């Protein structure tokens, strides 16, 4: 993916979430605003047959993975036109056919599942990898340790990506996790690991590509920590604990303007081209909203379908 495509993907996510926030019927949401570069950089190195699993903060990864915005919007609004027929919804987005094995709202709950998906890939689809995106909060959970150990022993094609936004709800990472750097956790298991600036989409892409290729070619699991910033509060239902001043400083680090400004400065993106890009995205999102609005809600009888 070139940087214009990366920019477009990030703009799409930002606009999608903004449109979602303008609605009153989304219940509550965990937004990716500020963390678009991590999802987009990661997904830019995944192939069609690779699979991605994520935490509950899954709007950016779902869109970055190429899911139809309309389908994602429908799922989040509880419509049957969503890939999960509106049954999974927030925190459980999934579209396996698109290489998005899905989100799981249990913190660290997708780590060992992803290792299992990677085991199936190793035995059935050599050359493919499985990526698992999780937050810094998940690094305090034993599931990470058990997964790192087994993945290392079995050389599973697993790309573990920690989207470290520095907080678990209100708890700063420093209060919840002893390691200096979260990528240090991979060390004892002999797992290649790197930490990069998660606000720099190109840096994320390049590091992810390097590690993904190593995993694809038999190196076993790899670990990438991306240092990011959460622009919104933990969820739209949770109060913000950071000061306005803090938030202002944080928002200055926007990964989208950073890339766009760089491109413009380098002459890689004219003001008009940028306008056009934003216009395209605006139209795509408007269409997605129309699609979701037009879609039906499930019949109550679906409450008991697809159980056993």
């Amino acid at each position, binding site marked *: 993916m070139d940087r214009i495509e990366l920019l477009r993907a990030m703009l799409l996510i930002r606009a999608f979430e903004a449109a979602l926030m303008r609605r009153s019927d989304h*219940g*509550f949401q965990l937004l990716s605003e500020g963390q678009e570069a991590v999802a987009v950089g990661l997904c830019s190195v995944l192939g069609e047959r690779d699979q991605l699993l994520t935490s509950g903060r899954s709007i950016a990864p779902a869109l970055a993975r190429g899911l139809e915005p309309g389908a994602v919007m429908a799922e989040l609004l*509880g419509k049957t036109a969503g890939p999960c027929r*509106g*049954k*999974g*919804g*927030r*925190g*459980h987005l999934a579209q396996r056919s698109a290489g998005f094995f899905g989100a*799981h*709202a*249990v*913190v*660290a*709950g997708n780590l060992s599942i992803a290792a299992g998906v990677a085991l199936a890939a190793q035995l059935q689809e050599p050359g493919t990898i499985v990526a698992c995106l999780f937050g810094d*909060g*998940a690094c*305090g*959970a*034993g599931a990470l340790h058990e997964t790192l150990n087994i993945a290392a022993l079995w050389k599973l094609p697993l790309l573990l990506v920690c989207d470290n936004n520095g907080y*678990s*709800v*209100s*708890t700063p990472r420093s*209060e*919840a*996790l002893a390691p200096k750097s979260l990528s240090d956790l991979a060390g004892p298991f002999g797992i290649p690991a790197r930490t990069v600036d998660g606000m720099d989409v190109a840096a994320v892409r390049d590091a992810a590509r390097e590690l993904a290729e190593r995993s694809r070619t038999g190196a076993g699991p790899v670990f990438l920590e991306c240092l990011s910033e959460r622009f919104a509060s933990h969820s739209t239902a*949770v109060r913000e*604990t950071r000061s306005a001043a803090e938030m202002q400083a944080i928002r200055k680090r926007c990964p989208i303007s950073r890339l766009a400004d760089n491109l413009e400065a380098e002459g890689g993106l004219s003001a008009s081209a940028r306008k056009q890009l934003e216009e395209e995205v605006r139209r795509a999102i408007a269409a997605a909203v129309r699609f979701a609005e037009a879609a039906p*809600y*499930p019949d*109550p*009888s*679906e*409450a*008991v379908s697809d*159980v056993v």
Partner: protein
Amino acid sequence: MSSDARQKLFFREAIIRALREEMDRNERIIVLGQDVAEFGGSYREFEGLFERFGRARVRNTPVAESAMIGLGVGAAAAGLRALVTITYMDFLMLGLDPLVNYAAKARYKTGGQIEVPLVVKTTAGAKGQGVAHSQCIEAWLMAVPGLKVVVPATPADAYGLLKSALRERGPVVYVDHKRLFPTAGEVPNEETLIPLGEAAIRRCGSDVTIATFSFMTRIAERSAERLAAEGISCEIVDLRSLAPLDMATVCGSAGRTGALLTLEEGQLSCGVGAEVIFRARESLANLRTARIGALPAPVSSNPILEAACIPDVERVTDAVRGLLASR
């Protein structure tokens, strides 16, 4: 202050008051949980405790439910009293080993040398949060020898039961319901403890007994209102404590009405209702019985599917009519 003076408190305020009083009274009590310190808890049910008691006693933990409970168990076994909060009951599954395999058995297996005065506080029930944040597994815990389980339905009970739980010699699981946090109720100004194992009759009636607990008590109350208009008189027994279970009150009521409906939000299979009805029938011959609970499916965050899955006034009133028709 007159001894029957009362004050309207929200659930979270009742919980905070119980904790503040007990922590003032006993400095061995510590609170462990995610976002419990400055943040004051997901439901602001710990607000002010950190400021009052400091970081040594009100501790933020990582997202590590197993170790959170294990630490609470070990600390309690060694002379402190720990309250560990697990935001959602679904995640209690991550900590069942220290709770069930250690805490519930410590006193027995050490021949009485070690006791574990631990309270695990959590929330059950559906409120739009989806398949992994809505479960009710109280019935699992009821069946564990060595564990006690309380499930308040009013702020006064939350206050009184939490205080009692914090004076127990063994482990207690205290279960709030997400839909109860926005509700308020009268709480006595005077310090009041509610003993574990005593049900409460919420409404007197003569035709049918509805045995329920936690948020479902409110569904029972609304159902009773509607049925009253039809001339059907419901008595509502709020179990309040599932272990120990107050069968005397349940049987007293069911003996008078001759009909017993159990109402729970969780799964029916091997549920609270099955247990209550079995035990009621041991002492009451030809009692008419029925049970209501969730449909046998996960609970979606989808409003339509969630509403379809869990019991509501329609299902309760229909069940009562059916039960009385079987007369």
